[in-house]
């Protein structure tokens, strides 16, 4: 607006030729001003700390989602000069639980407004402590559910129908005849017991119903009648009943003090010897030592795990050597489409929190 007033003044006071000359300069100034404005806007983008851009951290496609909203600094660069970089950082974009959110790190980030987690599980975060520093915590529920439910079913089917062994036999150079030892167990019309009937558990029930499976579920609270009827699920107030009756036990709880070691020696003993345990929650929901014993002794038929504790397991861990265990390296949400949606949601949460607005998925301590 200042430019316009200036223009009018110039036109009134000067000859057309001189005005024309000056206008060119004014236009130049305006362009420069606009450029400066853009630069300021760009500089106004807040700073976010991430782990790294690599196979172990953020893929390029993920960074492309973040860049329009944040300047990015990776952890290694941050560590080079913590005093310089620390105070700039307003958001910590947490992927794969790295960098580790400890008091020592947080003390270096005085401007931090939000720890925005990529993923729904926040068992690795001390939410009350982080909140006490005036920092919000956000996660990405909902967007992870389809892919996680899919991996639960993929593991269930692969274990039941011996897909891995079948593939190995089919590829084995020494095979001339197809062995009958690849007999699996029936999935259709078997009983699927889901422990944890949140968003993910419910999607699993939906998928199980497509296989005409009988669905049992155990949850802190019972679902509505409509929900139950939609997936043909029966509530088991007592988890023991679910364990006794199920052919497939699927763990879809979040990790809390209550669900830590939820499945131990006693629970495994209640399961059928023909039953399979599938875990898409967290490794710590299962007592792994008890699980090893149960698998070795035939207390249960098999286990299929997308999660363990730790991840990855030590290379000499007994679970890695058991023939009736299928393990995947926490690939529950590993599709590009889901990953991008998660990053988008993580960024949306972080942008809102940095602006002081309500973040769509703020995690509030209970």
């Amino acid at each position, binding site marked *: 607006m200042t430019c316009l007033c200036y223009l009018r003044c110039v036109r009134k006071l000067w000859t057309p030729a001189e005005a024309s000359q000056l206008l060119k300069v004014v236009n130049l100034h305006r362009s420069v001003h606009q450029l400066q404005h853009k630069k300021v806007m760009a500089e106004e983008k807040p700073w976010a700390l991430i782990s790294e851009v690599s*196979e*172990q*951290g953020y*893929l390029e496609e993920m960074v492309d989602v973040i860049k329009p909203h944040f300047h990015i600094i990776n952890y290694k660069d941050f560590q080079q000069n913590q005093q310089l970089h620390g105070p700039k950082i307003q958001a910590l974009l947490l*992927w*794969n639980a790295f960098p580790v959110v400890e008091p020592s790190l947080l003390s270096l980030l005085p401007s931090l407004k939000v720890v925005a987690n990529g993923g729904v599980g926040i068992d690795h975060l001390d939410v009350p402590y982080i909140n006490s520093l005036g920092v919000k915590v956000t996660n990405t529920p909902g967007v992870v559910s*389809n*892919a996680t*439910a*899919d*991996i639960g*079913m*993929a593991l269930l*089917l*692969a274990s*039941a*129908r011996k*897909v*891995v062994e*079948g*593939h190995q*036999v*089919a*590829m084995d*150079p020494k*095979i*001339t*005849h*197809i*062995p*009958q030892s*690849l*007999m*699996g*167990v*029936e*999935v*259709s019309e078997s009983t699927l017991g889901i422990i944890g009937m949140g968003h993910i558990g419910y*999607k699993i029930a*939906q*998928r*199980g*119903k*497509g*296989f*005409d499976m009988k669905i049992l579920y155990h949850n802190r609270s019972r679902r509505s009648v409509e929900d139950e009827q939609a997936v043909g699920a029966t509530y088991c107030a007592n988890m023991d009943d679910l364990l006794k009756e199920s052919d497939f036990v699927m763990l879809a709880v979040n990790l809390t003090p209550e669900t830590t070691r939820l499945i131990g020696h006693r629970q495994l003993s209640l399961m059928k010897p023909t039953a399979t345990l599938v875990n898409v929650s967290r490794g710590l929901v299962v007592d792994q030592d008890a699980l090893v014993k149960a698998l070795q002794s035939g207390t249960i038929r098999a286990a299929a795990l997308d999660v363990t504790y730790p*991840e*990855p397991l030590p*290379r000499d861990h007994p679970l*890695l050597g058991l023939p009736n265990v*299928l*393990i*995947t*390296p*926490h*690939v529950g949400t*590993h*599709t590009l*489409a*889901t990953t991008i949606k998660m990053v988008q949601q993580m960024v949306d949460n972080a942008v809102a929190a940095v602006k002081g607005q309500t973040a769509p998925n703020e995690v509030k301590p209970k």
Partner: protein
Amino acid sequence: MMEMFYFHLHLQAMEQDKPWALISEVGGVSQMMEMFCVLPRQAMEQDKPWALISEVGGDCGLLEDHLDIVKHHFQVLCYQDFLQNPELHGPKVQALLMWRYYPEARPALLRMLPSLKVVSSGGAGVDHLDVAFINGLGAKVSNTPGVVSRATADLAMGLLLASARRILEGHRVARDPETRRIPLNLQGADVSGATLGIVGMGDTGFKIAQRGHGFEMDVLYHNRNRRSLEDEQAVGATFCQKLDELLTRSDFVVLAVRLTSETAGLIGTRELELMKPTATLVNISRGQVVDQDALVQALRSGTIRAAALDVTHPEPLPRSGKHSVSQSHVQMTQKNIETDS
């Protein structure tokens, strides 16, 4: 003399309406005869017709656990024993129970079985049988449709999911002695919400559609005949008159057709090129439905993303197949067979 004895017992039972009891042999039965009519097991056995099977156990034979089902109705002759004296054994055989394609119903064998009434094949597919020829000898051919559908549909989904979400590679990485960190670049393809194209919407194809529907997939199907509206609505399936349309739109193409002269080589270079480069081919039909050389080319060149096969031609393949999740032909599960009794 013995025959008269048994006949007398039979009449007695008819008159008195007593229940029948099977015992091992005749001896010390007077008291039992007060209560039951008795017929020794031996006589019962001799009444049963003879069935020829390949073997018990081994790679191709009937499982030991299932032999009782057969023995309930038949006296069992194994192929090796038959070969000891075909002239003696051949004329006894009234049924050929074919399990996993054995014993093969070749003309040379069939000609040694003059009393043969039926070739009863375990499984739904009969592409391995010359039905016309067998009928020409006065023998029937039977198969086991329906009972195989659920387990086959389950495996189709199992292969689809294993391929899409890279279960094999994941398991390998999880167990690899060199793995120190969880890799974040083991990305797969979404199944939920993807487009599932089913080629062949018979009993098995329909069950696959049902399962895909549970994953909120967009289900397309191509079939010689269109299904009823109720069927389509039940599984949210859309009919594709033209196979090409299904191929261009699908993220997962599942082959669930029978092998016939029309479906042999149904999926060749042209069809594979119509598919999306991100698409997966799943085959639970027969190996010959797919032009395997064309498939290898398509996989190597990235024309399609991946293939997941429960069937190949031959089975097993000569040692190759680097690019596919290849499963041996084992879609029948133990429980499925047990419930058949």
